[in-house]
């Protein structure tokens, strides 16, 4: 098992970020930004400080590991859905979307068209819910309590919508292999449009009080720049890589379901600093609003939403890998089946874990005060990274 020091040696050899070393170990102070810290979530990283500058960072995940992948092997394909959405409870439509796509490829199910549209609507709404929550926590990490309360309140508007659609506020258990579990209720379309318009008005308020606030800009512009080459070499994904001028979005690069019929732009920024990483999710949310409007327009007025399945769906032995753009980045499932109703091996590849690898590289050389800003700008969700 290679340690972080050996990885740093290798990264120096490859020409990546040069790690700042201090000759005198005595003057360094070791801080454990552990799970019992208001600025870290369910995650621990050990940092060494030289005065006010960080010279070493060692992430230590695993506090919320619950064995999701192993549990999948003991349940059949439909029973896997409720526990698989627990890693990210408020973005659950995306993590089960990817699973459903992979299972449909294995078993050979064709999802009806209306079901595909509703799945995409649920996915976009969940992306907005997750990003608003992430934005709220970003605000409170920087000490801005108003920015914590406003997105959390506006999130209620969308969660109310999702509750009408799926029956539960979070952990919807809505996507299953074959489609979605129930059709939209009456009046959903108008309610959805009015709430999307309200949200678009609120984005302007966020820009006024947070993004254009000179104090916020001073704290995040130019901090922890991730260049384009480093981003590609480190393999980060999602809004982090789009903030480093790489316009990669799984919905455009490998379109799934009906995303090849929707017209939207991939939002990206060129600077690659903390400000870009915090601004790209807002642009993604605005883009998401346009996508939802198009989806509601193009949706067939009636039709099946769920394909008929046999009681214990199973397919021929094989493997499949599908991925989806979730709030954090590319979320992929690799499922191996051996012909029985229960999968043989399920491997979940999440965006958070890949983004975490950039944390040691970015934190070294920054001040202690930048630590929460950098850490959370990597769009890291600790529960999902541990699965």
């Amino acid at each position: 098992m290679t340690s972080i020091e050996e990885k740093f040696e290798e990264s120096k050899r490859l020409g990546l970020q040069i790690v700042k070393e201090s000759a005198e170990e005595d003057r360094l102070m070791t801080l454990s930004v552990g799970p019992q810290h208001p600025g870290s979530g369910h995650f621990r990283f050990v940092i060494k400080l030289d005065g006010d500058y960080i010279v070493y960072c060692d992430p230590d995940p695993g506090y919320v590991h619950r064995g999701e992948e192993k549990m999948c092997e003991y349940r059949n394909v439909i029973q896997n859905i409720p526990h698989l959405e627990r890693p990210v409870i408020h973005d659950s439509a995306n993590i089960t979307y990817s699973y459903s796509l992979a299972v449909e490829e294995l078993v050979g199910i064709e999802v009806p068209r209306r079901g595909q549209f509703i799945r995409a609507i649920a996915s976009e709404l969940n992306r907005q819910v997750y990003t608003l929550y992430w934005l709220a926590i970003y605000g409170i990490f920087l000490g801005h309590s108003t920015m914590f309360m406003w997105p959390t309140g506006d999130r209620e508007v969308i969660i109310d919508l999702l509750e009408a659609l799926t029956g539960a506020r979070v952990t919807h258990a809505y996507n299953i292999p074959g489609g979605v579990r129930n059709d939209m209720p009456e009046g959903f379309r108008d309610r959805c449009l009015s709430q999307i318009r309200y949200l678009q008005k609120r984005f302007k308020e966020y820009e006024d009080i947070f993004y254009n606030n000179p104090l916020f800009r001073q704290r995040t512009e130019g901090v922890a720049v991730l260049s384009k080459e480093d981003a590609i070499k480190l393999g980060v994904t999602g809004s982090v890589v789009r903030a480093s001028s790489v316009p990669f979005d799984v919905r455009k690069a490998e379109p799934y379901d009906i995303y090849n019929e929707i017209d939207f732009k991939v939002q990206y920024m060129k600077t690659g600093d903390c400000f870009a990483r915090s601004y790209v999710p807002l642009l993604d949310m605005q883009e998401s609003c346009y996508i939802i409007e198009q989806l509601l327009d193009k949706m067939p007025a009636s039709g099946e939403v769920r394909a008929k399945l046999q009681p214990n769906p199973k397919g021929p032995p094989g493997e499949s890998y599908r991925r989806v753009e979730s709030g954090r980045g590319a979320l992929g499932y690799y499922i191996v089946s051996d012909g029985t109703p229960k999968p043989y091996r399920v491997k979940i590849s999440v965006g958070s874990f890949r983004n975490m690898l950039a944390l040691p590289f970015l934190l070294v050389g920054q001040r202690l005060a930048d630590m929460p800003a950098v850490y959370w700008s990597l769009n890291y969700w600790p529960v999902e990274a541990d699965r």
Partner: protein
Amino acid sequence: MTSAGGFIKSIESGSKHLVIKRFTLRYPEKKLKFVGDGYQFDPKKGVGIAGYRGRHILMHDKCTGCQLCAIACEGIAEAIGMVKVDEQWKHNKKGIMPQIDYGKCVFCGLCVDACPFYALFMTNDYELSAFTKEHLIYTPAQLAIKPKYQGDVEIVIDDRGATHG
């Protein structure tokens, strides 16, 4: 002096909110309204009917004791167990009905999807607190009671903002 402009804009934005109505839902004095009666599943069409997934309701005159709900839940939360009931029903020869442990139930509704006889639905009731764990296990007789849930408010969006009203 763009920074001064930025400050003035943020002060303006913050002060604007002093005249907007508050967004809070004053629970438990006011409760949210739901559309419909709760999540139901139509086995003939094979698709569910949208609704809130709260406490279950068991129709004793349709349940045949086939255990499909308990088998579905075995892989998820193991919250449904079959118990013997005293009632004599023609369609329920074995005399067993499901009992649900709400300490374990995750309210996913897959048991409702599994029932082929229109016997198990979910309702709008979500206020299920109890003082002991034993009180959370709902027997088939308790599951047959239709809950009385009164919702008063919903989210209203107008030009000035959103409120619960």
